[in-house]
């Protein structure tokens, strides 16, 4: 795949975020390079995905309120990393499985 389309595929992205803005309720001034997975998994679809897409589009399958049939593999971490920091009271905290280390089209 050429330079252009590689950019769209599922890959690792990162973002500088304050620990307090992670939304987990910790109070800390430290920042973390939050790594997450995003991008297209078009190239990993199967006949199942094509069929499910078609049936969803024709409303042959009408998912329930909580149902969310996914018609393509999803771009997800295939490896996680934990992260430790000192909160405002200088107590050490560790949050497990919070950073994506590697990404892949799974499922």
């Amino acid at each position, binding site marked *: 795949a*050429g330079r252009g389309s590689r950019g769209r595929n599922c890959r690792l992205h990162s973002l500088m975020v304050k620990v307090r803005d992670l939304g987990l309720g910790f109070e800390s001034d430290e920042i973390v390079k939050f790594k997450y997975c995003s991008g297209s998994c078009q190239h990993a679809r199967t006949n199942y995905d094509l069929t499910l897409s078609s049936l969803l589009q024709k409303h042959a399958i009408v998912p329930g309120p909580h149902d969310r049939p996914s018609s393509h593999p999803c771009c997800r971490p295939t490896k996680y990393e934990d992260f430790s920091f000192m909160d405002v009271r200088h107590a050490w905290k560790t949050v497990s499985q919070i950073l994506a280390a590697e990404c892949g089209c799974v499922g």
Partner: protein
Amino acid sequence: LYFPRREYHENVYLEQPGGTSLLQIHALKDSEDEEVYFWLCPQLHIPRAGAKDNLWFQISEKTGLLFLNKSLDREDFDTLFAGNWMSMPKLILQVYLTSRPFQGRECRESYTKALVKLSVVNATMPACGSLMPSQLCFADTDLSFHIKENKPPGTFHQLQRFALQQQCQNASISYTIIADEGLPFHYNEDITSIRVAQTLDREEREKYELIAKCTVREGSKETSTEVPLLVNVFDEDDMPPFLPNGTSTTDAVVEFSRKEGTVLAALMVYDADTTPIFPIESSRKKYTGIINSSDPWIKETFRAEHIFHEISFRPNGSQVRGTRHEYKLVLNKNISVTESRSFQLDVIVNDTEYQGPNKSLTLHFNVSVLPISIQFSNVTYHFTVNRNAANFSQIGKLCIDNCMRFYGVNVTYSLQTPNVSCYAVTIAQGQEGKFGILYVNNSAVLQRHDCKEIQYPVIAREERSKKEAYTLLTIVLDGSLIHNDDDCPDSCAVSKTRSECEECGGVGVLMGKCQWRQGSGKGITTNYSTCSPSIKTCPDGTCDAVEIKDEKICPQDCTRANIVGGHQKGVLGTGIRAGHGVCHCFPDISCYCEKDDIREPLCDDMC
């Protein structure tokens, strides 16, 4: 000596007295002076129970009459068939023949045998009244016999059923044989025996259909039963091979196809005899075909292949099976392009099993091996290449005279150093070494203004003979440079829409941009929509010598990766022969054929 039947069937009842005649077995002679002696193997065989000693049945050594020498009572029945729940269990006797009297009771396997399958009824002989007339007439409704051709006449069957007819003395049972006029069979009404009255010739007629009619009269009541009686004439190899219309000569020319296995010519040999294909081993040996030559080159270079077909002859109206033998002259190895000679090649055909004269004949192949010239018809070749052409774009083909007609001839094409230091083009060897494909291998050179016209000396060399041909290739560059977006994929096949396709280039493009092929869109079709570097060569169902160098060039022809969606693989298992909607690929990962109206749900979380 031989039996006219392979199997005999009869019923046996309990308590039938010793001495009761059961069945008359016949044998036919291979030669007039033979005498016939009948023997029973000492053991009888019971399906599912195996072998047991035969204490109850005897055969008259001279007449072949099978009889009970000891009555079979209930106790015998139980010991023989203990636990055998079949309603009418069977026991099998083996009868064999010798042409000299001897006392030995050894049932050697080399003797021809007939099987006597006796159904043992677990009851005494039924009263005559309870028997149906047809039961009185025939033990066996399958009256089929085989008689060898060229053998002496003899009696081969007796219609009457001894035991049952003895039981029904007051019923009058008579038989007649219904047959066309002039058939070589004679029926003796007194003893109800049928005799083949003369030597038969299978090549005249191999099947006779008669009818055995039995009439039972009891008082005023008369009933008759008819059963077909079939005589098959067994073949003997008594006919020599012959040529259908006397043609034993044909021409065999070796020119462009010089590859091992090439069939050069074929000649037919006929035989009025049949040729069985089973057992395969002996079938293969029956008819041979040997190249008659002392020249080692000829023996090494050619071989004779033989297959045979069953055909029908129609002597005086009846249909008789015969054989057509086909002898093909085949190249046994590749022949050099320089080889040039003419000679007559003889194949000696031999009917190994035929004992008479003319058992073999000779086939003549007038062989002419023509040389092939290795030359270009043009002194120069001229191609124009757009300066925006990408690597692997195919410029054209180079082909010496008749190159597409060659088989077993391997030609290598090579470009020598060009007149200017503009090395932009090279050549790939086409399939089976017939032609060369010119393609761009350094697109950056095309963009240099100092490179306008490039001349390459070209050599075509035939690998085996080292013969060479020369020509001159002129490449003229033209067209103004255009720019491609950096975001474009390397492979045209990645694009799924016309706009994506035509706004980008990719490996193999001729004029800088990919070309969109709009398909017919109906179901799974060979005319699927796709984005291609050059519609002329991709997709065309062939993963050619250039496309094979990198799957990004034309995955539509070359991919071996997983193809998802409605599709049909290429004939050789590579590429996409037919697809549904738009076929696009992530080279070396997967290809998809899907309708282009399926909009991807763009987001997951946000829905």
